[in-house]
């Protein structure tokens, strides 16, 4: 019996709903938005103070709160390996240049870019094409003409994220500012950080 014959049999057509091809899932934009928003933001109403339309200014305490030692949510993490969350780098380029460079690089990496007020969301799929992969980059001004780009994963596998981050940094060489003195220790640091 051929497939065609099977399909035309009354037994088969009882309660059968054919597979519809070419119909994409309706993904609510709110869900996508929610997935990328920092959950902690919901508990703190942020007063956004902009510096003449430039990136947010970050004071010493805001920088300090980035420490992994102050992020107690990892107490509830059931995974057992050390996840390096210290992904950020410094740049002396103008903020607009930093944002533009990131967009171009992200595009070349095949990622979709959503950009708003020096906050960029890069979206793609994992290397095995099975799950979404997304990161958020935020540009902050920490001192006159000195910017810090904070990079964090919002969707996808940690290992994949770290591979991505290394790749991203190598492509962003032109805008990353590195300390001039190179000691053996800092050279080692540089292979593991950006």
């Amino acid at each position, binding site marked *: 019996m051929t497939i065609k014959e099977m399909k035309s049999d009354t037994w088969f057509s009882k309660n059968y709903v054919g597979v519809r091809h070419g119909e994409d899932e309706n993904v609510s934009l709110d869900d996508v938005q929610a997935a990328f928003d920092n959950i*902690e933001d919901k508990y*703190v109403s942020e007063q956004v103070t902009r510096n003449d339309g430039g990136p947010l200014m970050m004071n010493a305490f805001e*920088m300090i709160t980035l420490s992994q030692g102050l992020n107690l949510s990892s107490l509830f993490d059931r995974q057992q390996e050390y996840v390096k969350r210290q992904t950020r780098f410094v740049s002396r380029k103008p903020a607009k240049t930093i944002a533009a460079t990131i967009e171009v690089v992200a595009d070349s990496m095949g990622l979709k870019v959503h950009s708003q007020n020096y906050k960029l969301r890069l979206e793609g799929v994992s290397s095995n094409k099975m799950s979404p992969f997304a990161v958020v980059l935020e540009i902050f001004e920490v001192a006159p003409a*000195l910017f810090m780009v904070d990079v964090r994963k919002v969707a996808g596998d940690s290992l994949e994220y770290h591979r991505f981050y290394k790749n991203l940094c190598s492509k962003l060489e032109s805008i990353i500012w590195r300390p001039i003195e190179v000691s053996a220790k800092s050279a080692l*640091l540089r292979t593991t*950080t950006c």
Partner: protein
Amino acid sequence: MGCFHSTATARARRRYPGYDHPMQLASQTAFSVSEVEALFELFKTISGSVVDDGLISKEEFQLALFKSKMDNIFANRIFDLFDVKKRGVIDFADFVQALNVFHPSVPMEEKIDFSFKLYDMDNTGFIERKEVKQMLIALLSESGMRLSDETIESILDKTFSDADVNQDGKIDRAEWENFVSRNPSLMKIMTLPYLKDITTTFPSFVFNSKVDDIVT
């Protein structure tokens, strides 16, 4: 209020010194009884990771936070604040009372209090410039970022001109509260939304709920 000194509690106290019955801890905090029980599951895991003595040591706390032993001045400071009895270890009651401050429904005043003590590293009642410098340098080092002393000083200058209203070189409790109200993102670290889902992340088994232990 009923007496919670049941035999089960006494037994738990032998294995977990400083243990308090979940109903007792729930009545003193924003947590429900089942949330306290879930916290106990987490506590058991953390406190048993190096030495199974029912207490969390500094090393076990670091392991829980970083999944590896790491000397971090912020984690160490948080540990010291959790360790109210100053014994170098955190017991279950300490753990629950301390995490309570991070609960989403606890008043902001308590969170501001905790954060002030957190940054007042030498307990002088003031957050001094040198303390902020030390913390900033620690953060930069942790991030693999290196800035010149000049740049660090200019970051501190800007922060202190903003926060240190009476310009005495240090931030007092009132100035901190004022500064936080103008920079609410600073309080993000003081709320753990995960605490509201704790019963699903760390399910405790029904037979742990010894309802029949309550002696009224």
